[in-house]
Every structure is written in C-alpha cells, then in structure tokens.
C-alpha cells in the first residue's frame, strides 16, 4: 500500500520530493512538503483514495509556521505526513474544510492558537479561548491578537430565524455529561441544525506540555480523558519511549495491558450506565457502578487512585503488582463474564431501549471518513479499525482478540459494540494474566532525564473512545517543543451536527450519548 501510494504521489506531484520515513521512528511512512497552491490537489488525491485526515495541526518553528496534515487510511497501515510552510508574519493558508469536514474544526483551533487565517473557511469563530486573551498562546514569540481576530472572540450568537426555536442544550444540561454546549435550532421538536460550542473546560494542556519536562507532564495525561486515564497514560508513555528509544521489560507490558483493559471496561461500564440515564432509565447506572466499583477496588490497590491514574512510567511501571492484584483481577473477570446476561435482560433486550436506539444516529461510512470518526463509533459503521490491531503497541501484537463491528452504524450497534468490547477486553486480560511471568517491572536504569532525538513522532493508541494521536516535536531538550493531542471525542463530536439534523430532541440526546463524548478531552 505504501509503495503504491508513493508511486501515485510521484506521478501526481512530479516536481516534489517524497521522503520515505522510518515508520518505527516517526509513526508515518511518507512525508512531503507542499506549496500552498498544491494543497487542495493533494487533499483531493487522498480523498479519492479513501484516506481520512487524522489530524491537522500547526507547529511554530520561529522562522516559519508549519501546518501538518496526517493522512491515514482505514483499510491498511499507511500514514502520510503533508506539511505546508507559511509565513509567520502574515500567516494565511488555504482551507481543507471543503474536502474533509474535520479540517473545519482543526483549522478553527489553529486559527485561535496561532493566528493563522484560512482562506475560504466559512466560520473562524474561536473554539476554546475566551475574552481577554490578547496573544496567540501557542506561538513561540509573543504575537498580539490581530484586531480582526479580537472580534471573533465570544462572537458566537445563535442565529435567530422567524419560525424556528433556538435551544441551548448545555453547558449545564443533564445529558451533555459535563460542559458541552450545543445550540439547537428547532422546528417544534425537530432539529434543523446543531452547533456545538466548546471551550467551557479548556485548560490548554498543549501549552502546559511545552512548559513541563516529559516526566512532569505525565500526571496531566490522565486529566484529559478522566474515564480512560490508563489509555492516555499508556499512549503518552509509549510515545515518549518510542521517541527516546527505551525497551520495556515484558512484565511491564502485560501489567500495562491488564490495567489499560480494566480501565477500558470501567469506561464502557460508565458509558452503559450514563447512556441509559440519558434515555431515562436510571437503574442500570447503579448496576454498572456496582461492577465498576469492584473493578476500581482492584485498580486502586495497585495504582493508589480510582480515576485519574498515573501508574505507568517511562521504562516500566510505578510499582509492581502483587498476587492480590492477580487474584482480584481474576475474580473480577469471572464476575464480569456472568454479568452480561443481566445487562442483556435489563438493557440490551428491552423493547423500549431497542426502539429508542435502532436506526438512530446512523453513521454512514462516508461521514465517518470525512469526520475522521474513530473508536466504537467507527466500528459501529462497520469499519473494523482498532489501533490495538492496526498499530500494535505494548504487547497487543501477541494478543488474540476480535474486533467487534456493527452493521447499521446506529446507536443500538454502538451499545452492542461496547458490550462486546468489554468481553474482548476480558479476553485480553485473560491472555495477559497467563503470560505474566516474574521479572523486572522497570528497565534497569530508569532514565532520570530524557534525551529524545531531534525530530517528530505521530503515535496512535486506542482509547475507550478511539484513536488517540500524540504528535511530539522534540528539539533534544527534556521538554517537548510541541505536543499535539488528537483526541477521539473531538472527532466523534464533529459528526454530531450531521447526525442530529432532522431528528427529534430525544434522539439528539440518544445520539450524543451514543458517541460517548468526554468533554475535558475535547477541550483539553
């Protein structure tokens, strides 16, 4: 696949050099630097070959700003980094939002953090920042916010129309789980248009990363997606290990996988509970929490915390697991396997639940690709893409598990996929436990100060919500030069306006719930 794309790229862009990169080091296979004029052509090139735009980001190299596009494809492993250098004094770039829907969001983000204006973008309203921010936060030198951009701050106001009703769903709304705000334009109970307004939980984690050493940023990872803290921890740790070049002992790998999969189950359990609460059934929430509490006890005994874990270290683990952990995990696995029947009776088979979710929020494959939807939502659309299989990290390559996929892409499929994913997680835990042997849980000489190589890395892991991409640019110091987090909930949210259109208000709640959004992760 890589060779084929390379050959086709060569014929399409004959005057450009296409660099072959070392995938194990960089996380992408090919890279090419484009001129602004070629960008749309390149985007169409990738669009025609059914690539999706995994992430669009910007890096400030002082002499120039570089916009980075990572193109990836669902059907095989082929990642292409496309870069575009622009002038830092008058930063203007062409937009890709007409080709890929997700670019519309990422470009808004780049605009407010770097001051890059995108030609042809329909809406440059700020996404995350609020009033009183007078510099572009991610620029390396102090650049004052342009007068035109100052007007964009807090400029959002719902468009009023004669015969439609605007409703603010959120930021304080029972079913937006946190502080997501969606402005719905409604015709009676039918939604004409949904417009997510973000930034109520924005903490500028990416800027924080630039001010901290790699070690010091470690606890922050668990605070982005507080439900999948282990996955974030693991993603960050494996990314930095890949950048620095640390080999982790086998025992640490297995413990990491067990802990991460337990965390995945906890996250999905919470989703089951919260989703049913969204649909009006409050009891399943407590049943799910009963299971979840049992699981958290196991994790707490070894990690010391119940939610925002910070357990993995560069080169291994914080501390070793004991026999009690193994026994506790085994007991939980046995208990959980017996509980699925109860969930099927109480939730999965319930005729009201089925009628509420069947045919609701159907994700078409095309929409999934254009919005770079990921995780269970993508698998619900029938695309069996899981980074534990596609780009194995830790020791997932040794594990034997299936990737559940849906047929219709509706909310009911998402429910079944998450339930089945819990089962596959149990399988992985079983296999990891069987392979868990004595040995060191940490590399012999844990690095006191990290010395990463110069360059960049795009590393992806599968969190409970999907594709987590970490793009790190290193300048050989012990602090990252730039760290971009491509978060799964954000790209899943991008699909929401399209899914909500024409549906009832109740369905909007059902769709929003089925996407399993974690707002702190979106806002970072």
């Amino acid at each position, binding site marked *: 696949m890589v060779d084929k794309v390379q050959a086709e790229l060569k014929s399409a862009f004959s005057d450009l050099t296409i660099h072959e990169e070392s995938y194990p080091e960089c996380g992408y296979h090919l890279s090419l630097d484009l001129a602004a004029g070629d960008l749309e052509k390149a985007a169409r090139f990738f669009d025609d070959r059914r690539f999706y735009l995994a992430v669009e980001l910007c890096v400030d190299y002082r002499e120039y700003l570089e916009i980075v596009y990572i193109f990836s494809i669902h059907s095989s492993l082929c990642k292409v980094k496309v870069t575009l250098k622009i002038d830092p004094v008058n930063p203007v770039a062409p937009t890709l939002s007409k080709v890929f829907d997700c670019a519309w969001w990422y470009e808004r983000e780049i605009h407010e953090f770097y001051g890059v204006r995108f030609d042809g973008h329909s809406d440059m309203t700020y996404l995350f920042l609020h009033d009183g921010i007078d510099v572009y936060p991610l620029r390396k030198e102090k650049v004052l916010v342009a007068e035109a951009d100052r007007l964009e701050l807090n400029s959002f106001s719902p468009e009023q129309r004669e015969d439609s009703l605007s409703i603010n769903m959120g930021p304080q709304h029972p079913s937006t789980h946190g502080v997501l705000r969606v402005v719905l334009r409604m015709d009676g109970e039918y939604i004409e248009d949904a417009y997510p307004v973000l930034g109520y939980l924005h903490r500028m984690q990416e800027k924080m990363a630039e001010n901290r050493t790699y070690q*010091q940023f470690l606890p*922050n990872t668990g605070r982005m997606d507080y439900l999948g803290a282990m996955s974030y921890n693991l993603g960050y740790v494996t990314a930095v290990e890949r950048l620095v070049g640390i080999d982790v002992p086998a025992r640490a790998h297995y413990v990491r996988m067990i802990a991460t999969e337990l965390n995945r189950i906890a996250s999905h359990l919470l989703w089951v509970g919260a989703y049913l609460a969204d649909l009006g059934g409050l009891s399943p929430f407590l049943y799910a929490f009963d299971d979840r*509490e049992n699981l958290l006890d196991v994790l*707490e005994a070894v990690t010391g*915390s119940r939610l925002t874990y910070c357990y993995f270290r560069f080169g291994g683990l914080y*501390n070793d697991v004991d026999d009690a952990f193994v026994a506790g995990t085994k007991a939980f696995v046995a208990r959980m396997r017996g509980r699925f029947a109860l969930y099927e*009776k109480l939730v999965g088979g*319930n005729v009201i639940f089925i009628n509420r979710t069947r045919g609701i929020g159907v994700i078409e494959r095309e929409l999934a690709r254009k919005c770079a939807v990921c995780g269970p939502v993508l698998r619900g659309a029938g695309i069996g893409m899981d980074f534990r299989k596609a780009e194995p990290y830790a020791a997932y390559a040794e594990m034997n598990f299936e990737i559940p996929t849906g047929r219709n892409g509706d909310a009911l499929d998402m429910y079944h996929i998450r339930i089945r994913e819990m089962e596959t997680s149990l399988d992985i835990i079983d296999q990891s436990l069987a392979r868990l042997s004595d040995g060191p849980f940490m590399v012999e000489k844990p690095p006191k100060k990290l010395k990463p190589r110069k360059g960049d890395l795009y590393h992806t892991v599968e969190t409970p919500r999907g594709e987590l991409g970490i793009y790190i640019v290193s300048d050989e110091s012990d602090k990252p030069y730039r760290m971009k987090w491509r978060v799964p909930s954000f790209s899943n949210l991008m699909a929401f306006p399209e899914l909500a259109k024409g549906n009832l208000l109740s369905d909007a709640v059902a769709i929003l719930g089925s996407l399993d959004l974690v707002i702190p992760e979106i806002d970072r």
Partner: protein
Amino acid sequence: MTVTPSSFIKGAASLAAGMGVTIKSFFQPVVTSQYPHEVLTITPRFRGHVMLLANPENPSTNACISCGICLRNCPSGSIKLVEGEKREGEKRKTVTTYILDFTTCSQCGICVESCTTNALGFSGDFNCAGFKREDFLFDLVKEFEKRKKVS
C-alpha cells in the same frame, strides 16, 4: 412503528425480564457501605497527600535533608518551601519547614519518586476538609512531629 401480535408479546416479555432483574435486586442485600458508620480499610498504596516518613534507622527523625529536588520536580509547584538547618554532630541537613499546598497538588507522586533519601510517602488521609484555603497549606514537619507524639 408497527405493532404485530408477536412483536407485542416479545416486547412484553422483554419488559417482564427487565422487571425481573429489578425485583430480584429489590430483595437482595445492598452492596453499598454506610459511610461514616462503617469505614472501609484504605489500601496501603492509596494516594493521600504527601507526608514525611520516619527514618528507618532512627524512627524519631525523618530522612529529609531538605535538598529541594521535590520542589524543583513538582509539576504544579505545590511544594512551596523546603528549609533545613545543619545541626551539630550531624552530617546532613535536617528539615525544619516543609510547606505543601494541597489545593494544587494532584497526587502524581513525582516528589515521592524523585526523593533521594526516600523521605516522602503517601498518607492514607482521604477526607481532608476545611473552611478556607489556608487549611490546606500543610507543614509536613509539624505533622510529622504531631504523628510522633500520638504514637
């Protein structure tokens, strides 16, 4: 939505199955524990706020030499002040003040890990409560002395 007799019966059965689950748990013993009447034991690895540990060789003192590595490594700047003095007859400094601002601490444990003399550890204190921010400016040395007196 069309309702056929068979789908109606199937639906009713599924509703009954759900009701069976809830009525069963209605008669089951509860799984919650009644805090504060019963307090569960905290796991030894639980991460409460940081505390100074006793020196294994000499339990009446702690091992902190007020080198300040924890202060420099803290990602949130929660460790405000570490001061010590050199006492007569001792090779290393002894800590006299150790101020931790618990309001910004995220219990990441980097201080515990970076400590060269293993003088820091997590306490099992899970219910810190107070009426003002100053209540959470812990002086770990004073707390250490207090614990010593109690034991």
